[in-house]
């Protein structure tokens, strides 16, 4: 399998400084307005730019939308996609749904766990890789499938997994 073509893989997850987070928030508040139906676009915007939703910004978000902190916290925690901690540089999501199971995603996951040295929801010892479940990527006819920093890969054999990992972390992986 040749090198990875998708540039998304080479882009490390973004992590913004405190001051940058404030700028991001201010921009989002101004652009999206304060109607509650903009809460999800707002959370997406924040996570896309800052890498995660810092819990200490929940009060500001709640105040902006005239909601209670509990309401905003409730929304953030309801959705699997939102994260409240900085992500590792490289997030690997392995599809756990039925079609991928039928094509050996269990053993692919075991291989990923062994290679990265962590379990599902865990992180590699150096903190660079995180392993997460996902329930279907719409690649069910080309199973098993996974994502690396949101870039989708299908028909992933253990050998292809190793090649993708090597390409995703050219400097760290020695």
């Amino acid at each position, binding site marked *: *399998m*040749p090198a990875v*073509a*998708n540039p998304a893989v080479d882009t490390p997850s973004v992590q913004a400084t405190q001051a940058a987070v404030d700028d991001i928030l201010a921009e989002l508040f101004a652009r999206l307005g304060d*109607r*509650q*139906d*903009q*809460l*999800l*676009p707002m*959370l*997406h915007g924040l996570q896309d730019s800052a890498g995660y939703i810092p819990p200490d910004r929940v009060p500001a978000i709640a105040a902006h*939308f005239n909601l209670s902190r509990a309401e905003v916290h*409730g*929304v953030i925690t*309801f*959705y*699997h*996609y*939102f994260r409240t901690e900085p992500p590792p540089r490289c997030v690997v999501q392995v599809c756990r*749904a*039925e*079609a*991928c*199971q*039928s*094509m050996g995603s269990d053993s692919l996951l075991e291989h990923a766990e062994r290679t990265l040295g962590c379990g599902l929801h865990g992180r590699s010892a150096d903190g660079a890789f995180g392993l997460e479940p*996902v*329930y*279907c*990527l*719409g*690649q*069910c*006819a*080309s*199973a098993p*499938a996974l994502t690396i920093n*949101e870039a*989708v*890969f*299908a*028909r992933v054999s253990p050998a292809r997994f190793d090649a993708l990992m090597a390409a995703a972390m050219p400097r760290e992986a020695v």
Partner: protein
Amino acid sequence: MTTRIYVPCDSAALAVGADEVAALIAAEAARRGLDIAVVRNGTRGLLWLETLVEVETPQGRTGFGPVDAADVPGLFDAGWASGHPLALGLVEEIPYLARQQRLTFARIGITEPRSLADYLAHDGYRGLRNALALAPAEIVATVTASGLRGRGGAAFPTGIKWNTVLKAPGTEKYIVCNADEGDSGTFADRIIMESDPFVLVEGMTIAGIAVGATRGYIYVRSEYPHAIARLEGAIAVARHHGYLGADVLGSGRAFELEVRKGAGAYICGEETALLESVEGKRGIVRAKPPLPALAGLFGKPTVINNVLSLATVPVILDKGAAYYQDYGMGRSRGTLPVQLAGNIKQGGLIELAFGVTLREILYGYGGGSASGRPIKAVQVGGPLGAYLPESQWDTPLDYEAFAALWAVLGHGGIVVHDDRADMAKLARYAMEFCAIESCGKCTPCRIGSTRGVEVIDKIRTGAQPVQQIHLLRDLCDTMLNGSLCAMGGMTPYPVLSALNHFPQDFGQPDTSRHAA
């Protein structure tokens, strides 16, 4: 003369390296001084052949696949000739494709998803033009007469739903497209959005004109970033050319469209949970009534339809209700986009009139299992659908025929498992999935699914199997009858069908074979 070479840009092709193939073809052509234009089309839906490269010839487009980047120089050396081992002949003549009846998917794989001109050149926006010449009630009557039923799962007649919204009082109404597509084994919505996004935009515009709604939302799951990008592109282009906006095609009618991104919650595919999510809340299911058609998004009358339902409206308005309703059987009219996935040799999208049997799909199209081993069980209709054993594969794809088997067609997703599948493990997975994805509003689903996992664990370790199986059936009964929505109400479908048809996997004597 420039030769056009097509390389799909659907995410299934990208996921196996299509971008690299496209780049290499361009580079090789340049190196060899050949006059070649690389066109990024959508997918044909023959997913086992991705990356499926097509070369334009005087006879038509000839295909090569599955092409890996490493194959590209050799394909040039061979002059892209029919003798190459990857050659497939004329793509339109590949039996898998030639035998389909493509109405909703008529354009996919043929056109460039980003190009409005290409869309228009292939009959795009004819449906909307016809609709604009009709009174709203006439548009709704056409959709009703077509027999189209919602493709998202519940199979409710689309025209009747639209009629309720049309007749509902008030001027503020909404069209919401359910593009959450969370079921394992389904990808037809994704293919529409990535490979023919304008057809969904057109269908929603027609819906808006039909019921008097001026605003629409497409709720797309966060797992589909590529689909979101394609839709946003199509919406911008449509708006720029007057197909959306304050004055759609100079008709004096307004329609605006916006994409909303989900956030990884399966339950947000349920229509009322989806509305809550668009409103910026947790995706908790609402009790019905009131129906969303009367009090939906922001409390206003709302049409909420699946991607396929809305994407089928343009062809109905273009070719007429009779044309569409001539396909199908019984009360299942038109075509069903079947998605064939899992352990299958030839997985992909197959659009056919209702009535074809499951066996024909599995062997006539799918070519049997990918592993070459016997197929054991087939789950139809997503994670909440029943597992069907071989004795049921002669069932025609038809909503009522499936209901008679205590099974569902759902969104048309078919997931194949070979003889190595452990059905008790899959039943456990169904319960676990429900526990992870339950919205938490009602006890049978929220607690029942967690207890269900524990009970199946006991059965699998052989502890008190008879009592535990009795308990499992009891629990399923409570979930079936006591849940507010189909998440808890249908999780018993995969669980009980696995138990009933494959008792040996639960440590029980196998009675099914002798009984049959």
